[in-house]
């Protein structure tokens, strides 16, 4: 089956991407598979300046999921474009940069640096930074700020497609989706992690130094599917599904509700060859369930008459 997908200015050889923060810069996984086999690699979150990230402990296992509060530890965008990007096989696999900043101007600046790089296929905008000026609610929870950040990135992105990554921690994700679309986003990716927490009754301490952390993994798949379903029906731009994908069946569920492609996050920790295997498994499963093509299958969910 032809697994090629093309949307919002991105051309991918298949709909399997790896999610930011869960696949390093890609090279970490080279011993376990051929990076060129993937549809795309979303690199770990980048900021203008290097960041040390949060104190330890940063991760905890939860039922069918995990919490993380890494705090966007990264070597900074300069290091990425000079030291890392050149060694990635970006001619043969779409490499997406994931942008993290805490105000619109900084986002614009980051976008400007990355837009100049031939090796960057697209920009994914992570709006999860709490906006200190606006009382600590994250950008991604405020539609007006989502629009503003999207515009700022889009203005400096040149010809690079801009994908905005939405948070599920909102009352109505379709409002955020529309804000990003209005801000000029070429595509949306969702979901980022759910806000969660874990504690240890013996030490009486939080299991994560940052106290509040992001929940990911199979546990959140139902929430992610619901979000993708709602967003696909409320904006005209393409959507990439993320959240709890741990099998080919999971990945197809996101396509069924209308996602153009998927990103695999936590499942990369189940085993480091997970994403590579998924490419073949998805194709085989599509054939097995009698889908005629990706296009025929995508969005073919039959809803009951209301």
């Amino acid at each position, binding site marked *: 089956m032809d697994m090629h997908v093309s949307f919002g200015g991105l051309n991918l050889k298949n709909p399997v991407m790896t999610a930011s923060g*869960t696949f390093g810069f890609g090279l*970490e996984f080279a011993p*376990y598979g051929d990076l060129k086999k993937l549809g795309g690699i979303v690199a770990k979150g980048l900021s203008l300046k290097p960041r*040390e*990230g949060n104190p*330890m402990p940063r991760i905890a296992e939860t039922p069918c999921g995990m919490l993380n509060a890494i705090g966007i530890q990264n070597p900074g965008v300069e290091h990425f474009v000079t030291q890392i990007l050149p060694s990635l096989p970006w001619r043969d696999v779409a490499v997406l940069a994931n942008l993290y900043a805490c105000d619109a101007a900084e986002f614009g600046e980051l976008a400007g640096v990355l837009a100049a790089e031939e090796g960057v296929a697209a920009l994914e905008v992570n709006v999860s930074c709490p906006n200190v000026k606006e009382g600590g609610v994250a950008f991604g929870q405020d539609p007006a700020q989502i629009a503003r950040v999207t515009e700022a990135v889009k203005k400096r992105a040149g010809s690079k497609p801009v994908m905005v990554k939405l948070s599920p921690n909102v009352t109505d994700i379709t409002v955020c989706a529309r804000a990003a679309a209005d801000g000029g986003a070429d595509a949306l990716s969702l979901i980022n992690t759910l806000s969660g927490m874990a504690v240890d009754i013996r030490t009486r301490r939080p299991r994560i130094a940052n106290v509040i952390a992001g929940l990911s*993994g199979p546990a959140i798949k139902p929430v992610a599917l619901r979000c993708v379903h709602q967003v696909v029906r409320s904006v005209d731009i393409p959507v990439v599904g993320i959240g709890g994908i741990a099998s080919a069946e999971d990945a197809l569920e996101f396509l069924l509700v209308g996602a153009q492609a998927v990103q695999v996050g936590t499942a990369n*920790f189940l085993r*480091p060859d997970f994403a590579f295997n998924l490419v073949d498994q998805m194709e085989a499963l599509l054939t097995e369930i009698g889908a005629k093509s990706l296009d025929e299958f995508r969005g073919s969910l039959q809803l009951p008459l209301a």
Partner: protein
Amino acid sequence: MSLRNCRNVKVLKVAPVGQQERPDEFYEITLEYPDWDEWRPGQFVMVRPVAWPLDLVWGRPFSIYTADETSLTVFIQKSGRGTARIAALRPGDEVAVWGPLGNSFAMEPDAPTLLLAGGIGIAPFRGYVERHPHPGNVRLFLAHRVPLECYPYDIIAADVCADCMLEKTSTDLQAIIDAMGGLIREYAEKGGLVLACGPTPFMRTVQRFAKEYGARAQVSLENRMGCGVGACLGCVTKDSAGHHVQVCTRGPVFWADKVEF
């Protein structure tokens, strides 16, 4: 053959260890060899049984205990849900194994080398001793809380000079710390190597004495790990400049004066 890989391999053997003393707690788990070019003592593997349900999302890290052309063995102590399920594996079951991961202990064949093991921290030293060209230069010190029969102490003591001390009370603990201080000082003075593996407080003690006596010491850290391959940044510790570095790729072994934990 490959430098590093992820393979589904079959469990060949599950051998309980020290069960009279501690029933159902310590096991040697022998797996099909994952077809690596090589491995070095101190490196580890991530293990996730193929049939695991998704309630536990991560693999579990274990030191390479020993290996030959056909098999790879890890030595595990049950301590939670994951190790309980790994201990319950049976021959024929499949596990995903990725490795060999991380760096390894320094090996200077001619240097007097002191191995300091805290309990289950003895695991990587079995392979270390096997691989050492001059075991006569190696000495093991094991501090333990559970009976000696639970550990591969005799196996290692067959090849190298070995001592052990049982910790039952806080007086024992102080005696162990004093003994460690004495040993580290001795190896510092003769310019030897000190290699340590064990729980975090044990590692801190080693680090403190190494600093005090100027010993060339390495510590192997046991941080919670998500991926084992350097990607999740969940396992980091601080290098001497205060920068976060991954224990899974930049460690698990660190020179005691180059790490903060």
